[in-house]
């Protein structure tokens, strides 16, 4: 049975084009290789 309120909560607002720049900067670009690099070199520089 669909719970209407729960389903509504799952819907998130879409990013407007004007907010694209902020969205890009907010984007976490860390991938697995960065994590491995951090683990291997805790003091290593982030990409």
């Amino acid at each position, binding site marked *: 049975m*669909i719970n209407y309120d729960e389903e509504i909560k799952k819907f998130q*607002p*879409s990013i407007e*084009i004007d907010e694209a720049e902020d969205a890009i900067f907010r984007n976490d670009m860390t991938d697995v*290789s960065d994590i491995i690099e951090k683990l291997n070199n805790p003091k290593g520089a982030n990409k």
Partner: protein
Amino acid sequence: MICPNCGAKVVGRRRRCENCGADIAVLDRLRKLSNRLYNEGLEMAQVRDLSGAVLKLQKSLELNKENIEARNLLGLVYYELGESTAAICEWVISTNFKKEDNDAERLLRLVQADSTEYQNVNSAIRKFNIALDLVKNGNEDMAAIQLKKVIGLNPHFVKAYLLLSLIYIKNCEYERAKKLLKRVLKIDVGNVTARRYINEIKLTVVNQEGKSDAEAQQEDYDFAGTGAVKGKIYSDEKPNFLSIITFFLGLAMGIALVYVLAVPNIRTDIRRTYEAKERELGADVSAANAQKSSLESRIRILENENTDLKSQLLIAQATPEADERADYEPFLQLYADYLDLCDRVINPISSGNLISAEDLEEINNFNGRLVDFDMASLENENTKMLYATMIDVIGRYATGTGAEPDNKPTPTPTPAA
């Protein structure tokens, strides 16, 4: 080998790059896994399973953020789902990683080239966000109006379809919701939310209409999103005996109808044909019979004539000398009268004419003359034979009892040797 981290050349099979110190083996493996996930995402995108493709491509980028192909494809999938801003973000990041020879540049130019389309897409996103706020505040009617506009501006905006269908489901407008959800499945075959909503509608409709579980299970929806409802699975249905019986009944009635209507007409036609032929043949038989009767009459007449001629011949042979002729005058007169009587009365009767009272009287009178004639005066044998012939012929037609003459031909007297 090239270091996947810094791009420096690595001599031999070194585990670590001499330039940046990165673990080459691990990095290489990560990139391979990322590429594999990209390939899987591409396969899904090709069959329009966009939701699945998004997941694969996001995982691919988690392993290798510099996978340009995966990022470009993810942007394309986002654009197809109506998430234009997300698509633009991915393409911008992609161009940041690789400035030259990058498809993302071309895609960005295409999006921004059509300004009307660009504005529509932006406007659709704004209206969707407004509609979402309205829904969260309980104002579903206004939200529905906004969402309809959003769909009009961007027909690929999947989230808008889903939100509007949710509103319809809440308002029990199941048919409208189904329509929208099928359009979603047309865009994104693997959209889990749309499938879940459709199942919900199906169960709700089944419960409302009181269908049996079997019937509910038999109904299916076209998940390819073509919008067609498959309906019942006919292979599971039992054969319809009623329709078979009705078919044979109809066939029997048709045959009976043909027999009742058509066969009598056919028989009548055949009968008429044979009757016409029968009449024809009857006419031919009648004509043949008439011809036969006339020929038989002709035969009798000819036989009578033959008898007469032979009698004349006998007379000629039997005629005495001149001085004796006077004695035969009465006989000759009698014979002449006989010939005359034959011509006028006897021959017509023998041809088939009815004998009248006058004829009968005449015959009887002549018979009387024959009886009274003195045969002793005749010495010639041929003359006697002629007399006998006359007696015989007239005797057949003369009657005191009223019997019908037998119409036999007159016997031919044999000439004297």
